[in-house]
């Protein structure tokens, strides 16, 4: 384990930036944070989590896939991918780190998504433990330890120090590069913080959210439940939950006519939208209730069914904070009885 004093953290950032582009959570003018590139003078945000999840690094909201140029009646196809360079994402929380595993299962399984894969290969993730989880957090329900985040390097931030511990080869390599700005230390402070975090986690209002009601094989039981009517009643059909979600991975591929050619791009799509997966015959899901149900059934039933029981939610709580009408996965889970003990 190595550490660096919090006041000197910028020297770590500077060191990383020498060889790779570094991204980290930075406070925006509106008070919320977002991942931005670090340059001299940029401050690491104190916030618990960014509004948009870091999935953008691997699965950007919009991404040009290829271009067609028309000249006269000829069409010329060009690959417009840029050369990928190594980059570091610093300050990723445990939940978001887990989300990469979920995304990997989608994009890296055959046929592998080469756009996604390239970016994953070129990234180093430095996670950071959550010293102050929010009331919206429920990652523990999915077996995630906020005190013990994964990633290539795990980090812990105390009032005075930042501690680092590499988990992977990539992480160890990067740690080596940081030897001049960090020093070897004991894990005493980290152990203490871990205990504190665990204690707080047990007091979180959503700590009792239980996944037992859900999981693979529950489709028949849950699909026609009358509860969906009430739950989806106020849903506006906007895409906020899906767009702030670190694990939502649906996308659409569209062509943009530039006037002298076409750019084929992919962009996030949302199962909440009435146009989602619209096909020649029309829509699969005609009502907002069906669309609403799809999102939660996907995360809590279909995904684990196809992915060794792993849920498609990491409990980051973004949808709890951002839904315009405050309807969210926790409310859905609780309504279906997913709560550990009587409240």
């Amino acid at each position: 384990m190595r550490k660096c004093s919090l006041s000197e953290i910028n020297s770590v950032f500077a060191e990383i930036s020498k060889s790779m582009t570094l991204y980290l959570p930075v406070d925006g003018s509106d008070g919320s944070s977002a991942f931005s590139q670090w340059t001299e003078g940029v401050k690491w945000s104190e916030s618990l989590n960014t509004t948009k999840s870091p999935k953008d690094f691997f699965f950007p909201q919009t991404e040009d896939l290829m271009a067609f140029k028309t000249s006269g009646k000829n069409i010329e196809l060009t690959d417009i991918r840029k050369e990928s360079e190594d980059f570091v994402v610093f300050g990723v929380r445990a939940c978001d780190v887990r989300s990469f595993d979920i995304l990997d299962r989608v994009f890296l399984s055959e046929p592998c998504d080469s756009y996604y894969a390239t970016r994953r290969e070129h990234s180093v993730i430095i996670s950071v433990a959550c010293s102050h989880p929010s009331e919206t957090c429920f990652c523990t329900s999915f077996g995630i330890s906020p005190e013990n985040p994964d990633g290539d390097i795990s980090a812990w931030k105390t009032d005075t120090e930042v501690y680092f511990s590499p988990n992977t080869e990539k992480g160890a390599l990067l740690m080596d590069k940081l030897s001049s700005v960090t020093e070897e230390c004991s894990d005493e402070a980290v152990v203490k913080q871990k205990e504190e975090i665990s204690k707080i986690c047990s007091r979180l209002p959503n700590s009792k959210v239980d996944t037992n009601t859900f999981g693979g094989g529950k489709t028949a039981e849950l699909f026609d439940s009358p509860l969906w009517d009430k739950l989806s009643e106020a849903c506006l059909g906007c895409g906020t939950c899906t767009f702030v979600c670190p694990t939502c991975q649906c996308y659409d591929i569209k062509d943009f006519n530039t006037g002298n050619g076409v750019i084929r791009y992919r962009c996030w799509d949302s199962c909440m939208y009435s146009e989602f997966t619209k096909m020649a015959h029309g829509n699969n899901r005609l009502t907002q209730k069906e669309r609403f149900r799809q999102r939660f059934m996907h995360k809590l039933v279909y995904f684990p069914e196809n992915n060794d029981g792993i849920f498609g939610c990491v409990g980051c709580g973004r949808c709890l904070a951002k839904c315009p009408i405050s309807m969210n996965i926790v409310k859905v889970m609780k309504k279906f009885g997913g709560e550990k003990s009587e409240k």
Partner: protein
Amino acid sequence: MQRIGVFVCWCGSNIAGTVDVKAVAEALKNEPGVVFSTNYQYMCSQAGQDMIKAAIAGHKLGGIVVCSCSPRMHEATFRKTASQAGINPYMVEIANIREQCSWVHKDMATGTEKAIILGKAAVAKVNLNTPLTPGESPVTKRALVIGGGIAGIQTALDIADAGFPVDIVETKPTIGGKMAQLDKTFPTLDCAACILTPKMVEVAQHENIRIFSYSEVSEIKGFVGNFDVTIKRKARYVKEDICTGCGACVEKCPMKKIPNEFNLGMDNRSAVYIPFAQAVPKVATIDPNACNMLKNGRCGICAKVCTAGAIDYTQKDEYIEEKYGAIVAATGFNPISMDKFDEFAYSQSKDVITSLEFERLTNAAGPTAGKLLRPSDGKHPHTIVFVQCVGSRCSACTEKGKEYCSKICCMYTAKHAMLTRDKYPDTEVYVFYIDVRTPGKNFDEFYRRAVEEYGVNYIKGMVGKVTPEGSKLKVQASDLIANKQLHIDADLVVLAAAIEPDKSARPLATMLTASMDTNDFFTEAHPKLRPVESPTAGVFLSGTCQGPKDIPETVSQAGAAASKVIGLLAKDKLTGNPCIAKSDEWMCNGCSSCGKVCAYGAITYEEKEFRLPDRTTKIRRVASVNPAVCQGCGACTVTCPSGAMDLNGFTTTQIMAEVDAICK
């Protein structure tokens, strides 16, 4: 994608002088959809048109682009060519490479480059063109004239003479309107009745004209060629077909103290009345507010004296529904109320009167049998002050006066002054004016005669105050030329009140969805080029409902409106312009913004049932465009947030394709 042919015209050297037409044709060959591209010296010539026709046949073209002069020149020509070659005429687009390219640019390279871009835009547009067919609707060969004044009478007569049936709806018990109340008419001093009443009789006797007097239009539906109108025939308690107009009832009616509207309340009539001797129809009408029999069942004298048995106290309002192809608004005018002009003491003194009241005072059939006597004491007035522009050209207070010039006052005041001096040379006559406006044939001569021959005192300046004092009216005025304040002891003051559209015009306009200006005059479709048509198709304007005008002008406008109506009714069916708006009912959300901006009232809303993909049904309000009424401006398309409203021939995607092509 269409199979498009491109035809680049040289226009001799007009285009070819600054545009390399061959290069343009060559460049456009590569555009998407283009299968044929050529150039020729004169595309509009017979040989050029034949070339287009041959290419359409030979290359199975679905659409053509002609790069030539302005579409305002030859779009119609090439549409006809296309149509002759068997393709829809609206599959033609023109790239204007003459007026907007070769003629305004000097350099060959620049001109050619721009011509190619304009050609590309036209190709991009024609790729999205769809065949359009003009809608057709039948025409009901009957016209409705609303208002039975001289405007309505003349319009009806002209239409009827052309062989089309016409109905006149008049709210009063008789037709004749304001002109029937006038004494003499300027500048010829014909007696109004002498020239009007023969026309009224002609109307009554015309086989093609029906008169609905004492009636109102209560509902109008439909559109040009196909109006459905409901006419309310108010109960007049006299059977119109039986009454002979003998006047026995009028004579015997005990209720004789009812202010006589026809004489503007300056004398009285009975509860059962005939407005004036030459009324058409000449039948009696019972005033339900005055008749004792109708009010409390105590009387019934008129029924007893009527030998024809025409009195019917049980009559009810009757509603008639009729179809019309065209509607003429001829609702006329009224003098504005003088109540707000305290300075002229109109409401304080009976001897301050309006010009229309003066007409009745000097009319042989009027309350004084044509003798000019003061309303207050019946004495002959020796000093008369006429005040012009009372309430006209008044922008200070819209509640009080009108901003516009009422146009007729200068002339009738000159007439009044002249006639007064003619009949009663011992009277002093003063006319206070701001300007004297006499544009019109023999108008200025007429006015000069009043001044020079009849010795009327015209004074530039306004009257500021009229104060009744004893039997006199103290008139305080200014003489601007002499720079004096004048004080005149007058016996009679005559106010040339501004005129305003009749109150019935506003609700009528709403029913017709015809537009009005802020003064409630009907708006014409174009102030210069279509002055007798309303923007609402099938609605025409006659007389003062469109703006102040005198009798000769009214009559000529009435004739013009009639000729427009005849032109419409002569058609068996109406062929519309296919470049009109269309509403996609699946996208329309019924917000009704489009209807608000439609100047023609072409958009209506209905509740429609939709079957949704989930097999449920939903009733929604949606807009629909009447193709016979829409003129194709596109105002609605931009108001519509969802894009449900689009414009044929200029669709959103077509215009955007043009933008894209130009900005490439």
